[in-house]
């Protein structure tokens, strides 16, 4: 899976396409499938075009300086390429999977500041079989992610705030409480209310 196929890098368009449209979750799945099954460079370029700018913004929001954010976004996408075969479309939508890779890349970054990256050298082993992405389960996973996204979008503002701070700030809940000027118990109860909704959205099977 690791072998690079196709033409040299020159063949891959580097400049963004003139017509920008936001791909649907099913497009992302199709590109991911092409990367996993055929090491398709063009599909990877499309995933890159969609995710790299979002990853940079995401890491910057989480407190990384711009150049570090760019580098960790690159590392995330490298891991997407090298670990593609570990993606199980029945478990998570593409965005969610790439989020977990990004999260780990950031942990790795914070851990090794100054040390060499391990993340990108961990290539999925030859005998990793990969998962079947054709099934209905993949669609269920996409729908599940969609429901979570809608649930996040309709959270009351004070719950959405503690959820965002939990994801973006390298802060214990006690610090979030201090920053918002509310008791720790309130941070926890808001988070629990929010998570009960997210879990409910995630668990409903159609």
């Amino acid at each position, binding site marked *: 899976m*690791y*072998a690079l196929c196709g033409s040299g*890098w020159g063949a*891959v368009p*580097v400049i963004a396409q003139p017509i920008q449209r936001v791909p649907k979750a099913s497009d992302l799945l199709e590109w991911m499938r092409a990367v996993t099954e055929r090491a398709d*460079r063009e599909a990877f*370029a499309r995933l*890159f*075009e969609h995710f*790299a*700018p*979002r*990853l*940079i*913004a*995401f890491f910057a929001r989480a407190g990384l300086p711009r150049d570090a954010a*760019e580098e960790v*976004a*690159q590392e995330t*996408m*490298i891991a997407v*390429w*090298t670990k593609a075969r570990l993606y199980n479309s029945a478990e*998570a*939508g593409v*965005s*969610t999977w*790439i*989020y977990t890779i990004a*999260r780990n890349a*950031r942990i790795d970054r914070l*851990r*090794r500041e100054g040390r060499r990256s*391990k993340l990108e*050298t*961990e*290539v999925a*082993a*030859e005998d990793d079989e990969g998962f079947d992405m054709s099934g209905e389960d993949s669609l269920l996973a996409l729908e599940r*992610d969609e429901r*979570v*996204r809608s649930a*996040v979008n309709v959270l009351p503002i004070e719950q959405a705030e503690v*959820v965002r701070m*939990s*994801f*973006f700030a390298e*802060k*214990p*809940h006690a610090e979030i409480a201090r920053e918002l000027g509310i008791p720790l118990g309130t*941070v*926890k109860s808001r*988070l*629990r209310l929010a*998570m*009960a909704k*997210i*879990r409910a959205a*995630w*668990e409903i099977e159609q």
Partner: protein
Amino acid sequence: MTAHRHPADETLVAYAAGTLGAGPRLVVETHLGGCSCCRKHVRAFEAIGGALLESEAVEQSPSDLLSRTWARIEGLPKRPRAAAALSPEPYPGAPELLRHCTIGPWRFVQPGLRIAMVTPPGENEASAMLMRVSAGRRMPKHTHDGMEFTQVLSGVFYDASGRYRTGDYIEADDEVDHQPVADEEQDCICLAAIEGRLRLTSFVGRWAQTVLGF
């Protein structure tokens, strides 16, 4: 005081968000390894991360970023690295996750209590510890500086808040003042970590302080 057999939602969120410290992350991961219900919750919370990533405003990124990324990919070794050797089992039947950690020798702390320091994979200092409490023995009475995260790996222990069996997870805040006791039947082995950065000396020091009373 709070005590749970499963991690609290806010702990699973912190895990999903990647903001738990290395030690607590290892303890939670050990719990997840044996608890499909908590794994499911974590996946739901990771989907929040996916949604937040998707909703990020698209910023202009350098036009050569993709070609630079390809260059880095081309530069990677062509073969996957051999899997790192597993460390020896710290006790028979230890979860495989622990065997990816670096585990120090079992050290005597007091009669009936031994501890071994645990360095999670990729970390360069110990941030968790294994505790082995002999059947029927008490742990020293202690309080915590921050949240304490504990997974019961083998055996049973109980304290004022209840009985904890193999696979149970307990988190206790700094107001807890408890003295867990291992069940009479067998030794109890737990993996524990506290919030924040730990150093071997402070950890052993903390125990020595409790044990020797200075």
